[in-house]
């Protein structure tokens, strides 16, 4: 007898091994595909968002010496007091500073076209008339205006940074420092501060965020209320009288937001535009009158009117069209005055040119990472050799930057070559060309100086001077272009290879899945001959494929990317409508054929005890139940959709969240409380379903209850403390206790749940393996169910804790959707294939992601929630919390997938020895399908991004979306990891226990 058993065991073991090998191969392939995808993604990110090397620190006195490679010996000199530093700079620079005081007036969103016209023509007549004073200054040659081309992204903060530092930051620079906004690079404001200038700032609080400690006086206004076009500017102008009268500041920064708001409301042709321009003109007139009235030798004031970006015809900005990048730089001061001028010539400059120009005008070192070129018309009051000196300083600074980026510029012959710059052969590379230009410039500068010293033949000197200026500006312009291209250009081959990697991984994932589909159908057909899954495509399957295709296609349109929530909601609810239709169909079909089949099904039910056990319902109720669950999903989805009308274009639509925000906070609190209670009750109900009273379960229930209480406590506390600063101690500690309890109980469940359920509770026949099937299956299912439910419910509580108060009900609704769809799928095994169910769950997750108010712009990330329960500042922790908040819903669905697979498999298991096959069947699809769908989305979106890299909205729409897609990828990895870990661990423990048990029983029998 024992022999027989051994042989059977051996046979099973070989089969087992075969299947194990297949499972292992699948796992390996999956891991390989995922790794490939990660590699491709990081390559693409590296290529698309280049991080260029920057020079750290601030430039000091060394910027007045010629650059040399190799280690700079002197290092930091002793920190001088501001006055000495100022005189040191002025002595070293050999150029007198041109101005003493600076008024920097930033008009947000003013296109240069309004002031300077376009293409050599003066601006439209109404524009001329709306800014009479400015136009009179321009016509009287007392001001000089430039079309200062701004680099994308044309939004305020990066543009301000570019203006003051002269550097063009990458996109990630913008996106990734949402928590540390203080500007730490070298910039002219800090330089002015170090030489003892007193700075006053009035206007947009972005400046205060950038330079929190710099200003002597400040009054920030928020740009949050876009509808407000009057108050924002009045709040700046009200200080104007006193500030202009005061003599204690050296630099005054005014930032007017109103014009941008006008543009956002009504576009360029808005009828609010003319009064707003008149207002701005009036401000310019007042400032100019004030600064000219005290024009003496120690108060020479420069008035700079700049705009940070332009606007499109409809008033938006962010992209890289001419209308958006066409910003203004208008200089009003004594050094630009001349006798004749043509103010409406198209004078092109870069926005970054402001930084070196101002730095040289005020006698401070040029910021280190500047790539701008000084504007020569500003230096008209200087002598020729001083002008050359300014050009030389600018060239030295840029040369330093070049040396940092390309060591080729370090070679001495680049700087000092005295050879054939006369022979104008075409240089082979940009570096060589730049070198040649630079050496030519230095050489002509030297000879010009020599000439000046030796004799005063003015014609020749002027000729040499002109040559030097030409070659300097040639070098500067080329170098600046080259550097800015380095900041914005994308290496195509790198991106293409990254994309091909991603495509390969996508295809291999698809291949694995098709392998799985091809592999086990024999088994499936064997065991589920009753299933009416034929080889034909069903409506829902066709729909899912088509839906994914439509979604991918919609990624190519910026408007659809902006309004992605509509797409997901539409797809998901259509999918569930199809489920509804199919259910109705099947019910009708059943009622058609009931008379024939009733007896059969009855006997069948009787035979298969586990099948019946999982139903627990008579067929009539079951049908109703199915209908109700689908209806619940649909209705909950509709409410979720109504909760946030969101998106980017339709933000102003009314929705429930806005109504709740405006209403009394007690309603929100009570809604929150209700949802916490509901979560707790749902958890207890689902624990009751297990029908066991083990200590662990009771403990779990208690801990969950206490967690719920803690969350409630936190809610009420935070309601009381809305007036005082948020970061008070008690709420923090409550949140921390919550984290501890939740993590402990979840870990305990994860580790212990496979151990507590009986594998063989009432086994009459331990030797016959088939007899114990249901019990084992139940052990597995129960433990996975317990783990999944615990995951889900604790995750819900965590979300309730972290999310904004108004999001409490959406969280509950998503939970309801999960539960009802799990119930639906468990009741409705035959209608839908498993992959349809998994994809449906994933669709729900994405819909919920947008239902929680997320959009595809970075603005909707809830930063405030990321600091709940963190006592000290930590980027990593708050980043993790932020991720949890933003991706709460997809992760919730992945956790719900654990529950789903526990319910799913209840009758799939008929060969319980083969734990690996159970494992592979259980976790393969829930793991692979999300990976596949996500990788399809990721790959196609990457291609879209590559194709759209010159699109108008690439910075404002596509790139933030790409960050979201990357985060979703991470989220998928995390979810899949949890699913796989849970499944694998549970199966391993159970198989271990079964083997122990079997050995024991065999021993008993033998004994």
């Amino acid at each position, binding site marked *: 007898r024992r022999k027989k058993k051994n042989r059977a065991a051996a046979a099973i073991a070989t089969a087992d091994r075969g299947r194990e090998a297949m499972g292992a191969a699948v796992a390996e392939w999956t891991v390989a595909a995922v790794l490939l995808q990660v590699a491709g993604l990081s390559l693409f990110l590296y290529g698309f968002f280049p991080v260029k090397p920057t020079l750290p620190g601030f430039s000091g006195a060394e910027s007045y010496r010629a650059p040399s490679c190799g280690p700079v010996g002197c290092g930091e000199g002793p920190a001088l007091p501001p006055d000495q530093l100022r005189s040191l700079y002025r002595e070293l620079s050999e150029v007198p500073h041109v101005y003493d005081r600076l008024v920097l007036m930033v008009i947000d969103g003013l296109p240069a076209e309004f002031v300077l016209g376009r293409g050599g023509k003066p601006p439209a007549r109404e524009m001329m008339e709306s800014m009479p004073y400015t136009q009179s200054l321009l016509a009287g040659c007392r001001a000089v205006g430039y079309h200062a081309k701004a680099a994308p992204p044309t939004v305020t903060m990066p543009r301000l940074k570019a203006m003051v530092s002269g550097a063009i930051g990458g996109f990630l620079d913008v996106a990734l420092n949402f928590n540390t906004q203080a500007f730490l690079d070298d910039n002219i404001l800090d330089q002015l501060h170090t030489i003892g200038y007193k700075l006053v700032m009035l206007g947009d609080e972005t400046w205060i965020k950038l330079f929190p400690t710099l200003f002597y006086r400040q009054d920030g206004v928020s740009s949050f209320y876009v509808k407000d076009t009057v108050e924002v500017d009045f709040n700046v102008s009200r200080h104007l009288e006193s500030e202009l009268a005061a003599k204690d500041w050296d630099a005054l920064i005014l930032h007017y937001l109103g014009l941008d708001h006008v543009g956002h409301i009504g576009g360029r042709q808005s009828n609010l535009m003319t009064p707003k321009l008149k207002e701005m003109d009036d401000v310019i007139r007042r400032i100019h009158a004030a600064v000219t009235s005290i024009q003496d030798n120690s108060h020479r004031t420069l008035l700079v009117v700049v705009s940070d970006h332009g606007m499109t015809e409809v008033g938006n900005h962010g992209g890289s069209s001419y209308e958006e990048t066409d910003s203004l730089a208008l200089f009003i001061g004594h050094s630009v005055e001349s006798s004749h001028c043509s103010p409406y010539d198209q004078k092109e400059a870069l926005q970054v040119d402001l930084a070196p120009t101002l730095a040289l005008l005020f006698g401070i070192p040029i910021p280190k990472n500047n790539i701008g070129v000084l504007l020569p018309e500003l230096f008209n009051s200087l002598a020729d050799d001083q002008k050359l000196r300014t050009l030389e300083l600018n060239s030295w600074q840029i040369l330093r930057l070049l040396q940092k980026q390309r060591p080729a510029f370090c070679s001495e012959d680049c700087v000092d070559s005295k050879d054939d710059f006369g022979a104008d052969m075409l240089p082979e590379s940009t570096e060589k060309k730049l070198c040649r230009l630079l050496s030519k410039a230095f050489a002509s500068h030297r000879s010009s100086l020599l000439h000046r010293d030796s004799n005063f033949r003015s014609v020749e000197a002027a000729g040499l001077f002109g040559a030097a200026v030409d070659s300097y500006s040639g070098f500067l312009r080329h170098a600046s272009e080259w550097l800015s291209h380095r900041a914005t250009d994308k290496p195509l081959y790198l991106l293409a290879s990254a994309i091909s990697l991603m495509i390969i991984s996508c295809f291999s994932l698809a291949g694995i899945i098709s392998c799985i589909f091809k592999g086990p159908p024999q088994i499936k057909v064997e065991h589920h001959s009753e299933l009416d899954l034929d080889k034909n495509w069903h*409506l829902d399957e066709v729909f899912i494929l088509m839906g994914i295709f439509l979604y991918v296609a919609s990624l190519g349109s910026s408007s659809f990317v902006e*309004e992605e929530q509509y797409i997901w909601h539409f797809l998901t609810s259509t999918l569930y*409508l199809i489920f509804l239709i199919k259910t109705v169909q099947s019910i009708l*079909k059943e009622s*058609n054929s009931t008379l024939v089949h009733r007896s059969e099904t009855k006997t069948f039910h009787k035979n298969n005890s586990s099948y019946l056990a999982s139903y627990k319902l008579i067929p009539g109720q079951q049908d109703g139940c199915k209908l109700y669950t689908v209806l619940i999903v*649909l*209705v909950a989805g*509709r409410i979720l959709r109504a909760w946030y009308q969101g998106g980017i274009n339709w933000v102003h639509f009314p929705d429930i969240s806005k109504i709740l925000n405006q209403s009394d906070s007690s309603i929100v609190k009570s809604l929150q409380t209700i949802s916490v209670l509901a979560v707790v009750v749902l958890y207890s109900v689902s624990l009751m379903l297990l029908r066991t009273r083990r200590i662990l379960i009771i403990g779990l229930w208690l801990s969950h209850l206490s967690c719920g209480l803690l969350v409630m406590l936190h809610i009420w506390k935070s309601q009381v403390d809305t007036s005082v600063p948020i970061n008070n101690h008690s709420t923090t500690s409550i949140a921390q206790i919550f984290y501890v309890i939740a993590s402990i109980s979840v870990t305990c469940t994860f580790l212990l749940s496979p151990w507590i359920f009986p594998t063989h509770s009432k086994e009459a026949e331990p030797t016959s393996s088939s007899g114990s099937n249901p019990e084992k299956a139940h052990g597995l299912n129960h433990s996975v169910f317990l783990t999944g439910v615990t995951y889900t419910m604790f995750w819900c509580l965590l979300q309730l804790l972290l999310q904004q108060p108004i999001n409490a009900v959406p969280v509950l609704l998503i939970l309801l959707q999960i539960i009802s769809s799990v119930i639906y799928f468990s009741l409705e095994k035959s209608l839908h294939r498993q992959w349809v169910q998994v994809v449906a769950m994933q669709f729900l997750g994405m819909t919920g992601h947008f239902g929680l108010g997320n959009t595809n712009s970075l603005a909707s990330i809830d930063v405030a929630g990321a600091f709940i329960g963190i006592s000290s500042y930590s980027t990593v922790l708050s980043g993790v919390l932020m991720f949890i908040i933003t991706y709460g819903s997809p992760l919730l669905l992945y956790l719900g997938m654990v529950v789903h697979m526990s319910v799913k498999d209840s009758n799939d298991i008929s060969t319980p020895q083969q734990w690996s096959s159970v494992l592979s069947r259980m976790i393969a699809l829930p793991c692979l399908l999300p990976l596949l769908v996500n990788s399809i989305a990721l790959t196609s979106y990457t291609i879209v991004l590559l194709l759209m890299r010159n699109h108008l909205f690439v910075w404002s729409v596509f790139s933030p979306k790409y960050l979201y897609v990357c985060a979703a990828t991470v989220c998928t990895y995390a979810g899949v990891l949890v699913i796989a870990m849970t499944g694998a661990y549970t199966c391993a423990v159970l198989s271990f226990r079964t083997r122990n048990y079997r050995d024991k029983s065999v021993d008993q029998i033998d004994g």
Partner: protein
Amino acid sequence: GAFLNAFGAIVLGAPVGIKYWIATTYWSCLMSLFTFVPAACVFGASKVDWQNVLSHSIYGTSSNVADYMISAPSHGAVIGAWLGAWPMPLDWERPWQEWPICVTYGAIAGHVIGMLVSLILIVAHKRRVRVKAD
């Protein structure tokens, strides 16, 4: 029929509100005109026929010409309305993007296409029957 259609539309995201009630009602009446009325005219109160139509996909299986005539245009109307909803969230700010205008256009277009398809199907069917008869 109208109620079912209205439910479907609202679940799929049609705006709910006093302002939109009338539009939704009109639209769902139109949809039921396309979908339910022809079926009701033919089937009347016969329960079996309804069940047959709802529970089976008739393409390729049915031998009845009337089935094609009813189901293809109504399916076409539903699919057309579904597709017609896609341009709604776009930011073109055209007047026809309002609910239910473009959905209605989609439904009508789908209905017409469905009629054409049913015509083709009927012709094909007839030919097949004739071949069989020969």
